């Protein structure tokens, strides 16, 4: 099993969710996060004084999938969340040792 963490632009969420549903991804966790990469911040102006705000609002998607699905999920996010402009985000893939559904106690791929 793998956990895919994707930092994406907020307006891409709906499209990414639909694409992943189509692949058979059954759930995901979404958080509003702030951060910066090479894009750095944006500029704000108050009465002529300029401030650079370093942190940009982004969404973090956490998705746990069966290992064989990993590549297709990553490809789908890459395709959908890309605008080609700086600040599109990143994808991280982690190994997952165990998944346990709290309601039933079942574990492994069946609990995803």
């Amino acid at each position, binding site marked *: 099993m793998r956990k895919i963490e994707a930092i994406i632009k907020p307006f891409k969420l709906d499209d990414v969710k639909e694409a992943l549903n189509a692949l058979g991804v059954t759930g995901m966790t979404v958080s509003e996060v702030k951060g910066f990469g090479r894009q750095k911040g944006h500029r*704000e*102006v*108050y*009465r*002529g*004084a*300029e*401030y650079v*705000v370093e942190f940009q609002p982004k969404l973090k998607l956490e998705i746990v999938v069966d290992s064989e699905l990993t590549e297709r999920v990553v490809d789908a996010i890459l395709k959908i969340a890309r605008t080609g402009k700086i600040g599109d985000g990143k994808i991280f893939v982690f190994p997952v040792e165990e998944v346990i559904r709290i309601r039933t106690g079942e574990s492994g791929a069946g609990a995803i």
Partner: protein
Amino acid sequence: MDSGDTAFMLVASALVMLMTPGLALFYGGLVRSKNVLGTMLQSFICLGVVSILWVLGGYSLAFGPDVGLFIGNLDWFALNAVGTAPGPYSDSIPHLVFCAFQLMFAILTPALITGAFAERLKFSAFMAFTILWSLLVYAPVCHWVWGGGWLAKLGALDFAGGTVIHINSGVAALAAALVVGKRKGYQREPFPPHNLPMTVLGAGLLWFGWFGFNAGSALSAGEIAALAFLNTQVATGAGAVSWILAEWVRLGKPTTLGAATGVLAGLVAITPAAGFVGPVSAVVIGLVAGVVCYGAVIAKERLGYDDSLDVVGVHGVGGLWGALATGLFASTAANPDGVNGLFFGNAHQFFIQAVGAAAALVYSFVLSWVLFKLIDAVIGLRVPLEDEVQGLDLTQHSETGYTWT
């Protein structure tokens, strides 16, 4: 006595009263959320403190029988001899109504200054300053211009308070910024306004109340009130438009805060001229005010003094422009009881306006500077650094503006 005039002046007084809570919203939105209540309270409590001062001795010092063309005497202490019969300043309204109308100005003026030292001054120091300044600076300057003092004798025009209120408070604000010093982190970290919608609402209430301020200064519901009312509207709109255009050209985008501040610049600038100029002149005064005040606010960043909410740039510079503009654009075609300014063939009026502005500038700056130094020596001006970082709401007042859940 005239019931129409009296009704008009009661409403105008109430409108001017609304400007102070409007100012509290305007300033409150501009500070960081940890200082919103402390900032708003400094405006709001003036409604209480100055009201008491005014009844006791403030009104008498400002408008009472003249002493040496400098200040009023204390014959009207505790409003002795100020009653429901018409007073010396108007035949058509009760003396008490004039007193109440002028009280609203006296409340607003020290409240304006609070923008300069926002986010770092001890509440006790603010109270001491407000009381002393109201009696020692506001009352005399008010007397000079409106109470039969030397500037009135000289013929200086100040319809609704460009010199008395805006130059006066703007210059006190400069003294405040210089004596009190910069906020921790000024020009190293951003101090973005925490709630601009609140600031826009405050600007709207100020604009609304300003009709009472300017039109009411005619002291009767007649032709001059009508002139002042329309001039107030068009100059203010022009101020907002010219400020955002200047921003647009300089930085590529017009901003909401720019429009709200341009409104203030236009209002301030038209105040001394409101009943003396024609509407086209008013538009020009407003247009110039937006650009000039924007420039003054940018200059602050370069000069490096920390006038937190730009009282100097907007009220000081806007008031100065308005006072001088009155000497340029005043016209007897607009107000037969007024005089002509430089553009209508009377250069001498411009000179008088400059003298009046300069006198208020010097007097207010020196006295305000001394008062701040004195208070610093006796009770201290600033909160401890730790409290400044924590925010004044919690450390000065034991409350917070917002509960985050």
